[in-house]
């Protein structure tokens, strides 16, 4: 059986599944239940200075549903912990004492003044926690007070605070980044310059999930008004994967450990984050939607997949997809594919036809035969866009098949070459370079 023990910046956990700093890790009761359920670690919900903040007393969450009310995206306007600092510290100490084999990282958010950080760091260190995470990510509420994403959006501040923390504690420092920026590489570089042991991302995306069309209030609505919240859940995973990959392949941050966050719902999501360079993952929405038990599926699924693929441990596949993430200009223009429809699997819904005919390249023909409909790809029109594959409701009914070198692409009339050729040498590129 594959080994999924995790060592992330020296913090050990029996598996790479941590609960992210969020409502599920707000207090001792929840964290004990999480450990009992099998979570490898938790990042304790963000601590701040006393007097503790308060939360709204109306709804904190908004949601985007898929079919059958499946939660695709969750947005929240909850702030950092709303309990006294000492209560949290005492609970952290007690939990860590009882669960020494589990990771326990403490998330922190205090004003950008050095003494604020050094004072709270000393207190956290006293709990026996394994590390700290600097919350430079939350986009709502706290950012109005100059904290959270207000810091994460200014690389200089990230570097400055990280440096203070590294100087003040022996604990590993993880810097949690906000996605509400233009280029994630700048804050990541700043964290590294400040001496961060790792970055974690993404925090939530600034969002309004919906508008109540009776009251014209954004949701969640507090007495008829709404404030933007932080969006998370499966809907943000693609954004998070891209940002993780950007950092993993940036020469300036290459090798900087990453804790992957953003819509991790299944073992597969976790494996994808790790393949793109994340050393572990943090989960929130899946737990908030289904409860802590989901980790059991994640653990068993990841192990089985690793066994099937022959990955003995996490290191065997971590970062394996990073070299395959590249810029568009390097993509092989001689990779020519055509859609293929498996007629025995086709249920004749015609969605491929509608999508291609209305919105793409008129490359699917529909004819009536034997009382049913037959859909076939017109190779001379198919640009291989993949939209038919994506809209087909039947798995593997439509696939993309590569034209072998030497055959003629009926669309272009050109013989398919087995040589890699890309935009850099393309005749239409005004800035092309000579072919090597």
């Amino acid at each position, binding site marked *: 059986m594959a080994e999924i023990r995790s060592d992330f910046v020296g913090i050990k956990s029996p598996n790479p599944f941590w609960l992210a700093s969020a409502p599920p890790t707000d207090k001792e009761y929840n964290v004990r239940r999480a450990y009992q359920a099998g979570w490898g670690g938790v990042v304790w919900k963000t601590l701040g200075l006393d007097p503790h903040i308060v939360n709204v007393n109306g709804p904190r969450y908004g949601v985007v549903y898929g079919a*059958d009310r499946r939660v695709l995206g969750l947005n929240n306007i909850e702030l950092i912990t709303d309990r006294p600092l000492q209560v949290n510290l005492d609970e952290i100490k007690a939990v860590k004492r009882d669960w020494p084999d589990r990771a326990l990282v403490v998330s922190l958010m205090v004003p950008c003044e050095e003494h604020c950080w050094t004072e709270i760091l000393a207190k956290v260190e006293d709990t026996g926690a394994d590390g700290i995470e600097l919350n430079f990510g939350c986009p709502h509420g706290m950012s109005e007070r100059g904290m959270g994403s207000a810091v994460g959006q200014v690389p200089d501040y990230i570097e400055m605070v990280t440096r203070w923390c590294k100087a003040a504690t022996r604990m590993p420092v993880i810097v949690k980044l906000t996605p509400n920026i233009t280029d994630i590489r700048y804050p990541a570089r700043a964290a590294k310059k400040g001496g961060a042991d790792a970055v974690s991302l993404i925090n939530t995306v600034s969002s309004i999930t919906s508008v109540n069309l009776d009251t014209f209030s954004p949701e969640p609505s507090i007495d008829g008004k709404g404030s933007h919240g932080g969006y998370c859940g499966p809907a943000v995973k693609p954004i998070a994967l891209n940002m993780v990959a950007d950092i993993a392949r940036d020469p300036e941050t290459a090798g900087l450990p990453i804790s992957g966050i953003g819509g991790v719902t299944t073992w597969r999501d976790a494996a994808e984050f790790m393949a793109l360079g994340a050393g572990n993952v943090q989960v929130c929405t899946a737990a908030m939607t289904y409860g802590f038990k989901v980790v059991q599926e994640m653990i068993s699924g990841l192990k089985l997949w690793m066994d099937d693929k022959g990955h003995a441990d996490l290191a065997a596949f971590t970062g394996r997809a990073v070299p395959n993430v590249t810029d568009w200009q390097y993509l092989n223009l001689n990779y020519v594919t055509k859609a293929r429809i498996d007629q025995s699997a086709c249920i*004749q819904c015609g969605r491929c036809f509608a999508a291609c005919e209305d919105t793409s390249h008129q490359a699917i023909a529909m004819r009536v035969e034997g009382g*049913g409909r037959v859909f076939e790809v017109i190779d001379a029109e198919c640009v291989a866009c993949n939209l038919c594959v994506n809209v087909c*409701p039947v798995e593997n009914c439509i696939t993309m098949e590569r034209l072998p070198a030497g055959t003629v692409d009926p669309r272009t009339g050109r013989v398919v070459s087995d040589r890699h050729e890309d935009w850099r040498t393309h005749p239409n590129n005004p800035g092309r370079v000579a072919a090597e």
Partner: protein
Amino acid sequence: MDGAAHRPGIAAGRLGAAEIAENFGDLHPPLDPHEAAVAADRCYFCHDAPCIAACPTGIDIPLFIRQIATGQPRAAAQTIFEANILGGMCARVCPTETLCEEACVRMTAEERPVEIGRLQRYATDAQMATGRHPFTRAAPTGRRVAVVGAGPAGLACAHRLAMHGHDVVVMDARPKGGGLNEYGIAAYKTVDGFAQAELDWLMAIGGIELRAGVALGRDVTLDGLAGEYDAVFLGMGLGAVNALACEGNDLPGVEDAVDFIARLRQSGDLTALPVGRRVVVIGGGMTAVDAAVQSKLLGAEEVTIVYRRGKPAMSASLYEQDLAASKGVRLIYNARPLHVLGNGRAEAVEFEYTADGPSGLHGTGETFTLAADQVFRAIGQTLVTGPLAGLDLDGRKITVDAAGRTSRRGVWAGGDCASGGADLTVTAVAQGRDAAESIHRALMG
């Protein structure tokens, strides 16, 4: 229990009021909003959807289901009613398992279709609950059209004509409009007086006058109507019942299934409706199933349908056959009646097994006898042709073209009395609607 359950002969009150109420409750209860959302989510919104092609009225099913899924069931209802003004009744009585739902691509995918019929009911119920009629009439044209028969064909035709601004007089031989919706369909498919409620709702378009108790050939003539009105639509259905060619056919206790069903539908108190202890239904269509199942639900102890051909030939769908079996009705295939036996009243029926050969159906010589206090004939209905002199007939129905035109100028026909299409409510609606469009073009052209 007072013992009425096992009383010999034909008797009322075999079951108590509570049991009757439960038995005759909605066969397919309405979907609640959550169930509708879940059911609607399963629709793939197919291109040029097979379900639309399978619907005789061509309702844009994927569109109305998407409208339900996005929280606008009344918009969905509008989509339905534009194609089929009796969409509420069709949602209840259509054999969807052989129409839209059979064509649903989910059948290919997982042998479980989107529940189109129940979703259609969800949408139409939502609109009808508002009490508002969803269409308005065009400016009056001054044209007058006579519609004979207030069943699905006649009502669909009248409504479409009224929408176009024509004045319509609908005549029906029965005391109430609605045709088979009111008199001929199993009660558990259309509960709570829905047929009459739908009729009233449909009439709210305005411009339609219903004259009940007026029969073609008795009170009015085709020549008379053709002279008085700008156009005539014939949608009076099949008024006669095929005779049963067997001895003892006229014994008391033997009657037409359609009369039993009509009596049942008009009964205010089903505990007062007599039914046999042992009932035999002869025939293989929906009427046979409706009569048999309702006999069982009234408390008949033994109910048997006997059909002369095999199971696949039966015009009642497999779903209907299974429904009958699930209610405790026994189905015997490949047998034909020889005699109704009895001393002064029906007591049993003797049957002979049949086989299909090169020269058609023939008896095998092997016989059996079923005890029967009550025998229902359900071997099909036939057109009353007397009042139709001068019209071309196609076999036993009025010959019509695709637009519903008969051989006589100014006279259209549709529904069960006209040639073409299955004898279904939804087919009748399509034919009535299309004839109305043809009449409109003829009158305004």
